[in-house]
């Protein structure tokens, strides 16, 4: 017989109780593990190799050459900046508008169902099509609708993609993703316990207080999901850039994914691209940790048990 402290015993039992949970978790974890570890491992490996698709003869270990090439490339750093700009601006816009729209569509008004349906539609549109619509039909300085509007009011049409390339990209991304934020937040609003709202109203809260002190904390968890997911997509946004500006003019809209893309498909330099991919992963993880530490700390309070 071993003598263990009862508390340790309880902890063990607690663990035993969670045992089936492990089995529930296992399939997803294993699947992802295989899916991510293998390519990631290969990427890591290539990042230390000389590997250019167009130059099959150039092989062998590269040491940290790929990384040094990467870090001395000013475009890499500007891509980093562009990436962060896209993420931050789009996040602020989509979450802000998403929240506002969610609150708006949470209210009852005439034809709300239809209006909501129309408002969420952009999210269902393929990014490629989004690019086509905006580039050709809206932003186009000659044939675009915006240009027409400008002319209508006597202004000179703006060549959006040339003169405000990053803004244009952010506008497109935000157009696409605001409905997503709205939809998720709306779902979150549905589960807000009515009695808390009532309590806060009796406590003399106006709409803003209600929103600030009850709705936002309650939405905390959901908001967190939105921020997290959107960060993912914004960090890796590609199709919008690819179909409209192709990273330009100059490198104004070259973000990290597009940078890697160019490395892979213009230079065919898998080695350096892999190094950049590893860089992206590291950036992403910094981002994730930041989100989890800081954002979660503030927002997680809404949990409801």
């Amino acid at each position, binding site marked *: 017989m071993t003598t263990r402290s009862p508390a340790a015993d309880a902890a063990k039992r607690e663990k035993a109780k969670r045992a089936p949970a492990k089995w529930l978790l296992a399939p997803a974890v294993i699947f992802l593990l295989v899916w991510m570890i293998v390519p990631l491992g290969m990427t890591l490996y290539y990042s230390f190799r000389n590997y250019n698709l167009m130059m099959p003869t150039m092989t062998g270990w590269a040491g940290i050459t790929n990384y040094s*090439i990467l870090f001395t490339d000013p475009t890499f750093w500007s891509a980093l900046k562009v990436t962060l700009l896209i993420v931050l601006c789009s996040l602020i816009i989509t979450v802000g508008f998403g929240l506002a729209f969610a609150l708006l569509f949470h209210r009852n008004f005439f034809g709300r169902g239809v209006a909501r349906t129309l408002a969420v539609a952009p999210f269902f549109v393929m990014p490629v099509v989004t690019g086509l619509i905006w580039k050709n039909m809206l932003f186009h*300085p000659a044939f675009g609708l915006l240009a027409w509007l400008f002319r209508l009011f006597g202004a000179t049409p703006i060549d959006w993609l*040339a*003169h405000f390339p990053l803004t244009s990209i952010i506008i497109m991304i935000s157009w696409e993703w605001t409905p997503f934020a709205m939809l998720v937040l709306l779902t979150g609003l549905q589960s807000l316990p009515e009695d808390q709202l009532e309590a806060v109203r009796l406590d003399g809260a106006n709409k803003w207080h209600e929103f600030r002190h009850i709705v936002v904390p309650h939405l905390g968890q959901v908001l967190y999901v939105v921020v997290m997911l959107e960060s993912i997509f914004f960090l890796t946004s590609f199709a919008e850039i690819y179909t409209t500006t*192709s990273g330009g003019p*100059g490198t104004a809209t070259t973000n990290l994914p597009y940078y890697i893309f160019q490395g892979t498909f*213009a230079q*065919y*330099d898998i080695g350096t691209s892999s190094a950049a991919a590893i860089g992206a992963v590291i950036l992403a993880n910094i981002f994730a940790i930041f989100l989890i530490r800081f954002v979660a700390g503030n927002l997680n309070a809404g949990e409801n048990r």
Partner: protein
Amino acid sequence: ATQITIATVNNPDMQTMEKLAPAFEKSHPDIKVNFVTLPENEVRQKMTTDIATNAGQYDALMISNYEVPIWAKNGWLVPFDNVPASYDESDMIPTVKKALSANGKLYAMPFYAESSMTYYRKDLFKKAGLTMPEHPKWSQIQQFAKKLNDPKNNTYGICLRGLPGWGENMALFSTMVNSYGGRWFDMNWKPQLTSSAWKKAATEYKNLVTKYGPPGVTSNGFTESETLFANGQCAMWVDSTVAAGYLSDPANSKVAKDVGFAQSPYATTKKGSHWLYSWALAVPKSSNHKEAAKTFIEWATSKKYIDLVGQKKGWVSVPPGTRKSTYENAEYKKVAPFASLVLNAIQTADPKDPSAKPVPYTGIQFVDIPPFQAIGTRVGQILAGIVAGQTSVDQGLSQANSVTKRMMQQAGYPKK
């Protein structure tokens, strides 16, 4: 039956080929043809990944004279050694054939070929009392553009490619640089982008497109410019010779009657002032059906095929620039008043001697080395940045120069 898969670019000529493929299948019942048709960039990516990783998904590839020599050198392509006599290799336009060969062997069959030339609106010129010389200079072009620019009525002086890309704005711009006496590299592979020829060309180019060009020029590639011209919004346009047929076809073009043709403009030298480009079909080493693929390619690039297109689609639509016989064909000459101009351009474009100064590379509007695609793309973006006013000409070019230097180093140049 043997199934062969062909990766092609979705240009109109290739689409015609896809539509006519059943005729081939009928005459070759043991071969079935599948097409993977995608835009140029996508298909190039797919083909490169496939061939470089030896995945063997495709049996025939539609590639250009940029890839052919490089890929051939990498040992990725199967040479066309014993072409049947009926194919009549000697009918091929020599410059094109040369551009598709490496080490004296032909590695791809030209499907079509193009050079560049100047399109202009005869009606507008006439109204303004101007005449387009047979072989205009860039300075003349500028004067014309200035006179003809009329944004109020949605007519612009000149349309030029502004869309970044090594095959887009850089194709045109490289020919401009060449004609100003510039070159990409000196004989030691040192980038020459800060030379005065580059600066002059860039200033001229920027001047033209920003002052007399349509708005949003940085998103105009070949396609967009062609549409603009066909829509009657450009007084002039310097671009590929393939557009000639399209613009002369009233079905597509509002200006079919009024389109005029001239040689590509030059500045200080005519060398390298017009490009040479060809889409050609090649068979990758990784293919499992090389013979069937060759059979198909030989059919698709044959005289017979050209005749077939002529019959089915009309003679304006036949793939141009590959065979001398096409240009001798009376029917073609009838519908293509530009034929001799085009033939001349193609025949005089010499990739081996693209610049007034000596160069270590082949290629007029590109440099036929692996890293060029990336360099061209990046420099193209910088050029767009210059046009968009993000950077000055000097700054942009020096940035482009250092980018080029970096990439050349990365790719191991200068080679011993």
